[in-house]
């Protein structure tokens, strides 16, 4: 590019800022996909990909996506835990499908309304 102006500086900063924020571990929401052997066998990889795609397509920059091992409820996989900053407890979702993931992101991540019918229990675990 040619000579930079102060506006260019702000543009570059904003474009790269979210990427860097994630590296610092800063985020409003943390989605943890459970990926033990059981989870993977039940389709957790597909769930993880869906989560990433949906976050991307909604242009969300404050969501940390991470994965963890088996949560001990192998029969209800694939599972994920959604933790929203400021909410009293994280929510664990079970028997996930791509459609359920979309709905959870629209409702829980965007509006702060947990999708009760997909949830296992409220307040079962903290990941940070």
């Amino acid at each position, binding site marked *: 590019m040619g000579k930079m102006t102060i506006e260019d500086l702000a543009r570059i900063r904003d*474009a*790269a800022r979210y990427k860097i924020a994630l*590296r610092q571990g*800063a985020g409003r929401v943390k989605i943890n996909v459970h990926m033990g052997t059981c989870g993977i066998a039940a389709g957790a990889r597909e769930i993880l990909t869906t989560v990433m795609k949906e976050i991307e397509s909604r242009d969300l920059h404050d969501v940390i996506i991470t994965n*963890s091992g088996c949560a001990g409820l192998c029969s209800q996989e694939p599972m994920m835990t959604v933790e929203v900053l400021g909410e009293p407890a994280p929510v664990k979702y079970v028997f996930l499908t791509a459609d359920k993931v979309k709905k959870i992101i629209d409702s829980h991540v965007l509006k702060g309304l947990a999708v009760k019918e997909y949830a296992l229990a409220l307040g079962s675990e903290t990941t940070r």
Partner: protein
Amino acid sequence: MAYRTYLMVCAGTGCVANQSMKIKERLEAEVHKRGLQEEVSVVTTGCNGFCAVGPLMVVQPDGIFYQLLKETDIPYLVEEHLIKGRPVKELLYTPPTEKVPIPKMSDIPFFADQTLLVLRNRGLINPEKIDEYIARGGYEALAKVLTTMTPDEVIKEIKASGLRGRGGGGFPTGVKWETCKHAAGDKRYVICNADEGDPGAFMDRSTIESDPHAVLEGMLIGAYAIGSSEGYVYIRNEYPIALERLHVAITQAREYGLLGTKILGKDFDFDIRVVRGAGAFVCGESTALMASIEGRPGEPRAKYVHTVERGLWDKPTCLNNVETWANVPQIMLRGSQWFSSIGTGDVSNDPWGGSKGTKVFSLSGKVNNTGLIEVPMGITLRKIIFDIGGGIKEGKKFKAVQTGGPSGGFIPESLLDLSVDYEELTKVGSMMGSGGMVVTDEDNCMVDMAKYFLSFTQTESCGKCIPCREGTKRMLDILEKITAGEGTEEDLALLEELSNMIVESSLCALGGSAPNPVLTTLKYFREEYEAHVKEKKCPAHACRKLITYAIDPAICLDKGHGCHVCAKNCPDGAIVGETKQAHAIDPMKCNKCGICYDVCKFDAITVE
């Protein structure tokens, strides 16, 4: 698609020397093999600081810290952590005195007790990508300065912050800038001193390696303040990674028009040239450094006229150290009040009235967590060595810490609660220096350590003035004599006399501070010197000519059954005895290397 996970691989000199680039390649290969390349990004960063456990990597956003990585660990790590979401316990850090590993970087005491200001971007950005620096607020300070502040306002802000030179002298930066701005001359220069030469010091190298743009931005702001259009970075040629990243940073800044003419569309021109130094310690001295840039031999001159008045090519020149420059953008961005709230003293009326901000130290020697740290001014030495540094290696006893490199002094245990700031360190005979911190334990002989540092300054003396050239040589001769058991009590008095003479009459600070290690050890560890000259003994058992090794025949036979390991390992064939017999050392043949002492599993060997 955006990445879900970043693998931040340390690419500082320490980790690179331990093959971190191979780790990085292997990680990339494994990530590809597992089809994760759309989700996981491998990033190389500058020095993370915890050099003791490199090669290392931090997994973000989880903040999991992996240490001592080997290429062969990588496939397992990728499968476990990135696919199954289970941190690999065996590769996590465990403090030396504990058994349970600490997964998160922010929970490790080494990191938890630091305050990052100069090193705020370390491990978070790829230093070779200007966009990542900008994303963390880079060049925002420059934009603010160019659009909203006059040069005088910039100087006022720096003065109010209480920032003082981080290269060793501790001269108030704002005062220096102001004098330089008002000095008579048609052209002015700014210089970044990156000629870091102290043994055991690597602050400047690591700062440039992890965040080169912070240094450039600081220089840009300084140039605007004093009215300069030309700057130099003087850096040692033996810092290949720092040099490379500096070149990359300058090229990228030029491409963006952040160096050159009409910067950010304003009426401000500035560019930077890099000059490589050949590695002479004296070239870290400002006048010698400028002579070297001009192409003359690197020798200092008497400073009746300061370099801010007549420096490079006899023009007003503002020279600051790497760390000083790197502080500048943060001060402009966050304000002098924020900066002066960190540290000791009060600088509101007197620029020398306190030590503000943070200081970067390279912690080395006999401490568990060697590495690069940044701490607020006023922290105690005890906290640095025992909390951040994790205490002394192998549970041994702390003896002294050398601050300020060969120009500084040794500080004993009784002064460990000293506040780390310019004034306090100078009061006890040492100095802040550029920030080297070498820790010694009970096995180090203080006479021998003083001799080591003095032999360094003696070798590096440029020879221009007699006190330094001849004086340090004579001091070294005396120390050689003492460590060989030939010293007398008069020698100690002579050492002190010579030291004071050199301090008072040397041309530059190299000579003026060279006797400090000797003076402080004489002051705090005089009994060790006396043991050497009176009893001809080295209490730490470090001076070879003053010790003898012997084998306790009873232990050798009863416990070790004459195992013969010592005899097998002795390079001089000085150990006599057959297997299943008690062994003995032939003092005529023994070279006192101590190998037998180290290999004996039964503690049958004694040293006196």
